[in-house]
């Protein structure tokens, strides 16, 4: 892994630490309350805070996961560095699109 990817990997990890804790707390809360789709959407729709937090989470996760997948493919698969990088970039882009679509679905 080159230095640039290493820094992105670690920076997105540090950024996601509090977001993961928040996400786990949200999961516990929603599970214990037995929330319905109406309950969830009533809290998230129109919320700039949820959009900002989960939008940031999705962007960081897409970058972090793409770099991780690239490293795993490069080290554990017969794909060379170039193909591993291309696959990881496509995977990261797909994650970003699907993730932002999911955020939009619950906040708009």
């Amino acid at each position: 892994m080159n230095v640039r990817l290493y820094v992105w990997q670690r920076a997105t990890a540090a950024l996601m630490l509090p977001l993961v804790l928040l996400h786990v707390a949200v999961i516990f809360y929603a599970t214990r309350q037995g929330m319905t789709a109406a309950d969830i959407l009533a809290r998230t729709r129109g919320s700039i805070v949820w959009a900002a937090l989960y939008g940031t989470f999705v962007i960081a996760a897409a970058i972090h996961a793409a770099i991780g997948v690239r490293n795993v493919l490069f080290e554990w698969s017969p794909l060379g560095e170039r193909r591993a990088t291309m696959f990881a970039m496509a995977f990261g882009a797909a994650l970003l699109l699907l993730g932002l679509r999911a955020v939009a679905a619950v906040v708009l």
Partner: protein
Amino acid sequence: MTVRRLAYRNSILWTAALVHRLSGLALAIFLPLHFLALGLAIRGEVQLEGFLRWSDQPLVKLAEGGLVFLLVVHMLGGLRLLLIENLDWRDRQKELAAVVAGISAVVALILLVRMF
């Protein structure tokens, strides 16, 4: 491979790195499905509600618990890495950090089982 070449696999640090990598890989595979499920809300509340009620099944609940556990394990493994790389460590403290991350993961699992 010779026994000597595989000796590093007895290190707790190697195990910690492997667990971190495998949990990350599993989360990367799961994430697109998670986003697709949440994206159901785009088609309306009824679609999302249908999915949520489907996810009430015991096996799905178990899988959800496993995913939350993987998320916590990966987060703790990442925290371990960030601390090791950015702080001044002495001999054996890295191994200690790996043990503490492992114990934290077990505690997290117990909490998850109690809360779900």
